[in-house]
């Protein structure tokens, strides 16, 4: 029984490790030094080039659906992923809430008792040992695992991650910043009805490339709570697709001309800070730059000083854009979207191709 798995119980590790080596010329590979991860492809994730090595076609498939494919000759990469699927592990969904903790450059991601990852931000790589059940859950990789991975490595590869939605018309984008339940996804959906494309409904990545501020999203479905869905005709007759935190939610796949369109970056042209109000009001006012900076800083994850210095350029570029405060309560999101279009983009309607 002991030799059937590579899991080691702490108190009897000496016994166990020895058991493992029975009948083999080699010592036990407790650390899986020689784990086979020969399948390798390259991708572009939030503008960063990464390689993914694995022994699982299913994980590769999940990555293909989440990122843009890149040439294998494209070296050097910005970060490396290496995931080994241990066929002896037998965990099944539902998966517990991921547990993420780190110290200094090492960040651990516990996906369940048997599936986990370690990110080394110093060498910009993430390695992991995954159960077959988790490897097969491509939707979970696309909606949960890959976004977490990118959040963890973002700073080390020169990205700033904002808790924000982002929509764009052509190359020009609008960033919607706000805490959970502030209505970012609902407003993004309403703006999509007005001709915008969705880059991101929850996490937006910023970087400076060729001196230009760029925003990236991930290929994720947009999440709407049940009450918000009632505003949208296309959702009226549908049942919620998921239960999350005790709430019914819809996952909507954004309509794009092509899959790669969803992953194309945009150049942000403005920022809207969403604030839910108690009393019925819709007010869009310019935000004081100092206040915008304070809110932005509070939204970004703590990093080492060298990473923060690199991030500051992107944050400064974003804060140099027009920043607006949207205070609202109730009201049709389409009307609020129209208000934004009129007030915020009124002078540059060509921005929307209108």
């Amino acid at each position, binding site marked *: 029984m002991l030799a059937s798995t590579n899991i080691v119980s702490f108190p009897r590790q000496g016994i166990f490790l020895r058991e493992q080596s029975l009948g083999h010329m080699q010592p036990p590979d407790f650390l899986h030094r020689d784990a086979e991860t020969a399948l390798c492809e390259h991708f572009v994730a939030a503008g960063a080039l990464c390689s993914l090595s694995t022994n699982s076609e299913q994980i590769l498939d999940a990555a293909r659906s989440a990122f843009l494919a890149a040439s294998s000759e494209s070296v050097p990469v910005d970060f490396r992923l*290496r995931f080994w699927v241990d066929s002896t592990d037998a965990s099944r969904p539902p998966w517990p809430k991921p547990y993420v903790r780190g110290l200094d450059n090492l960040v651990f991601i516990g996906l369940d008792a048997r599936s986990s990852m370690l990110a080394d931000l110093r060498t910009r790589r993430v390695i992991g040992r995954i159960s077959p059940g988790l490897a097969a859950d491509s939707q979970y990789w696309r909606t949960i695992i890959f976004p977490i991975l990118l959040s963890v490595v973002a700073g080390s590869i020169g990205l700033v991650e904002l808790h924000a939605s982002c929509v764009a018309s052509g190359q020009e984008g609008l960033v919607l910043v706000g805490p959970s339940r502030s209505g970012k996804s609902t407003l993004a959906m309403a703006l999509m009805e007005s001709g915008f494309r969705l880059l991101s409904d929850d996490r937006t990545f910023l970087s400076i490339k060729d001196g230009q501020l760029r925003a990236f999203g991930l290929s994720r479905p947009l999440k709407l709570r049940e009450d918000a869905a009632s505003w949208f005709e296309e959702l009226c007759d549908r049942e919620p697709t998921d239960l999350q935190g005790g709430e019914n939610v819809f996952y909507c796949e954004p309509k794009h001309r092509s899959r790669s369109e969803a992953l194309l970056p945009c150049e942000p042209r403005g920022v809207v800070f969403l604030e839910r109000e108690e009393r019925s009001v819709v007010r869009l006012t310019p935000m004081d730059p100092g206040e915008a900076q304070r809110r932005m800083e509070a939204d970004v994850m703590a990093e080492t000083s060298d990473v923060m210095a690199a991030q500051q350029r992107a944050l400064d570029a974003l804060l140099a854009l027009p920043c607006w405060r949207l205070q609202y309560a109730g009201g049709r999101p389409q009307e609020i979207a129209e208000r934004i279009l009129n007030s915020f983009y009124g002078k540059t309607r060509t921005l929307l191709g209108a």
Partner: protein
Amino acid sequence: MQAVAEKTGVAARCATPFAIKPESGRLGDAARPESRQDLLRRFTATPHVANVRVMDRTIRVESSRPQIVEKAREFFVRHEGPPAATPDFVWRIVGEANCRSGAIDIQLAAFSDPGIRYGNMGQRSFLAVDIEARKAVAFVDERAVESEPEFNCRSLFDTLFCMCAGSLGLMSLSAACVGGGPKGVLVFGSPNSGKTTTSYLAARQGLEFHSDQVAFVEMPEGKVRVWGDLLPAIFRPESLQFLPELRSSAREFSYPDLRVHYLSKRAFQAVRAHPVGPVCCVFLDRQSGESRMAPVSPAEFKRRVTENVLFLEDQRFDSQSAAVLQALSALPAYELTYRDPEMAATLLCDLLGDKAR
């Protein structure tokens, strides 16, 4: 922080070389800006510090909790000595109340890549080692450090040490070791071959009980030296049939699929841990037939010892391991086929000479 140290009695020990010194401002590689959120806890302060001496190496143990540092000091107490000015490795350990992995039978799953390695105990407790940075980090359940270190907390420190051993210039072998003064015998054998029992019986005959599970081998100045392990001896339940005294001296622990008896080796060890120079290696083979001891050829010896490496190490340690194997293969080696463990123990004593007892 100082108040916490005083309350726990830690401050009183600050004058010793192993003092746990609350240090102000240790916040990881860089201080976290107050304006940003540390969602990943990467900037958790570990102000409680002790430079712990282990096998003539110095490990700087830092923790968010003074109890964890104190447990580390207790765990390595046999190795204490003046620490080096520059630590050989840094361990940063954070105790969390909600790791939910307090059960002693929790299992460790491990994985690695060149230069980094990690293991997790359940979903919410882990340890990770950055070999190049000579640093290990861990998040553990606070409850794991509340009871006796040898029986609960030991697993964390022992596992961390095993995962750092290569970087510390040590080769970890699955072997027992008994000694007399500065000399020792390395005892190899498959599981249930009687390493623990034979070594224990040899210790009862007067030898020092350095190890029953893992031997750490080093090559300072070209000479091979062996350090014993850090754990209690582990006996299987059937050993109690012919070692009835273990019923009172050993502690029984049950796991879902295994029952074992832990015996502290302290009664059979010098107060201070010390390395031994191995005079020979013995491969145990318990059989019902006649007892005999036969020499093992150097080629066969190398093959067998390779099988007894604790686990495959990072390839960067290959030359270090090869040097140790080369040195060990120069020693006399024997296969000891035996039926009676007492007789096997006597033979181990004989190999070390009369003075050993």
